[in-house]
């Protein structure tokens, strides 16, 4: 109950329309959902999905070896690594993002360092680009990828890898034929946990992307805080939620049988 009331309210608001000075007028209408199809927003959808997708992909590629090493280390080392992996989480999100601004800006830590080492002549302009946003998102959400992967891989008995080796599988074959399929639930969970907040993130794109690139999260924030069009903002997030949920559920349904082991 407690869980669902806010969702229902959100659904209700998304069916209302914007009052003259912001606020909500309770006209039951689907206009907000129709507006979502406006080609004006297509570019934003596409950019957002792309950037969130790339973030997820980078997190997966970086996180998998990390999670694997963690899962196969001795219990003492495992705890240490888990602890280290959680460290970014311990600092305020806002502060972390500012730290990246310090590192990336024209006269920032990175450029100063590389130039004093003589590796580059000109500062690399990376702040206020999509690359900076990507970096910030990957840094912020990597732990959310590593943890479920770690849990999934830790459950794969090492003897399965040994059995595959014993049955003539080389390193890559062991990975693709045994580890990868068996860690699928962890991969899906990790991807969901990274993709969703990446798509909805607004502080990171705002600060590191420099407002140049409007994304879904910043759009929702914009609608709520600036334009104060709450109904449209709600419709936007409701649709997003339904899409993501149905994608994930359909995936797990399909995997259902195979996962029951």
């Amino acid at each position, binding site marked *: 109950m407690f869980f669902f009331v806010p969702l229902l309210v959100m659904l209700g608001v998304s069916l209302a329309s914007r009052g003259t000075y912001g606020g909500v007028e309770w006209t039951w209408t689907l206009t907000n959902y129709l507006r979502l199809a406006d080609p004006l927003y297509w570019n934003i959808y596409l950019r957002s999905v792309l950037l969130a997708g790339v973030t997820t992909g980078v997190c997966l590629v970086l996180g998998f070896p990390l999670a694997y090493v963690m899962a196969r280390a001795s219990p003492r080392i495992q705890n240490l690594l888990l602890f280290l992996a959680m460290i970014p989480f311990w600092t305020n999100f806002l502060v972390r993002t500012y730290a990246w601004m310090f590192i990336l800006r024209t006269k920032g830590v990175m450029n100063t360092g590389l130039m004093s080492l003589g590796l580059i002549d000109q500062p690399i302009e990376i702040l206020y680009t999509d690359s900076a946003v990507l970096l910030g998102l990957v840094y912020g959400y990597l732990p959310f990828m590593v943890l479920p992967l770690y849990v999934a891989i830790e459950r794969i008995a090492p003897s399965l890898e040994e*059995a595959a*080796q*014993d*049955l003539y599988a080389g390193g890559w074959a062991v990975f693709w034929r045994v580890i990868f399929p068996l860690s699928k639930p962890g991969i899906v969970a990790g991807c969901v946990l990274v993709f969703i907040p990446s798509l909805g993130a607004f502080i990171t794109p705002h600060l590191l992307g420099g407002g140049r690139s409007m994304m879904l999260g910043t759009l929702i924030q914009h609608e709520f805080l600036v334009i104060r069009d709450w109904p449209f903002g709600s419709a936007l997030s409701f649709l997003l939620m339904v899409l993501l949920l149905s994608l994930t559920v359909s995936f797990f349904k399909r995997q259902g049988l195979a996962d029951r*082991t």
Partner: protein
Amino acid sequence: MKSMGDVSIKLEHLVKQHGDTLAVDDLSLEIRRGEFFSILGPSGSGKTTTLRLIAGLDQPDGGSLSIEGQLMQDLPPNQRPVNMVFQNYALFPHLTVWKNVSFGLEMKGLSRREIIPKVEQVLDMVQLGEKQNRVPAQLSGGEQQRVALARALVNRPAVLLLDEPLGALDQQLRQEMQGELKLIQERVGITFVFVTHHQEEALIMSDRVAVMNGGRVIQVGTPQELYETPGSTFVARFVGHSNCLDGEVASMDGTTCTFRSDGVSPIQVPCPGHSLEVGRGTFIIRPERLCLTRNAQPNGFENHLPVRIQKARYIGDEMQYQFDLAPNVRWMARLPISSRHHERFHPGEQVFVSWKAHEGLILTS
């Protein structure tokens, strides 16, 4: 004498350290082609580590290992001509029975046309043809065991390694699978190296057995050699039950000697020439070689001692009687029940235990 061509696996001075204990300690063994060879030992004796060294899943810290005359040192497990049946089967839970069994052949790069008949044949052999599309979770323990066996056998390895493959099965199924496994080994003619802590299983199935303890091989021999002429009290106690008595060989006189121990009448023991010297030793006799009788006459037995029955236990096919030969020397006699009208003794009863001198054995340390 067997020629070198008969050796399938040769281990020389293998050493393997785990942390600061020697899991395998200067181990040398020769396993012959086509034999059913068991490695028997208590948990922690290094038997599984030895198997893993042969498979290449662990790397030795010293010594050499060759299979079919080829040195294995630098070969990873996927390039060795051996396959393993893992203790808990290690079946791939996401693959069907068929895919589990064909895994090795696919990895070898065989074509689908070559794979199909091989998999079908081996699934027939283990009687799992009808369940080829199930995943392991849908199989019983015994069926999983058979898939694990099929998955290894289908590759026709030079050597099949089995790590306590029957340990997870319950008693009835275990006995059934012992027979089946032995049958399959005889049919395919592959060298089997079988690790177990279960002495009866090792005796019943093997051509030869190596008894391990503390990382070392204590004795290697046929089941009969181990049972009839154990080389140490460890083997005597671990391979079947033994009644022991510490004392000393007191006098030698032709083919029998006299063995003395505090509080026990002198015992006549066999005396095989020069191999036995006067001195301290342990007398060993198997419980089923003892006779119990109410008759005070020795009746041709060289040893005939009065004892009082402490416990009588019925197991259906035999009676086990416990009695104290001397204070703190509890012995057991096992008397087969070969008829409904078997004579029983009762706790507290005074009887005589008797045995032929040649049934006993002296071990000197």
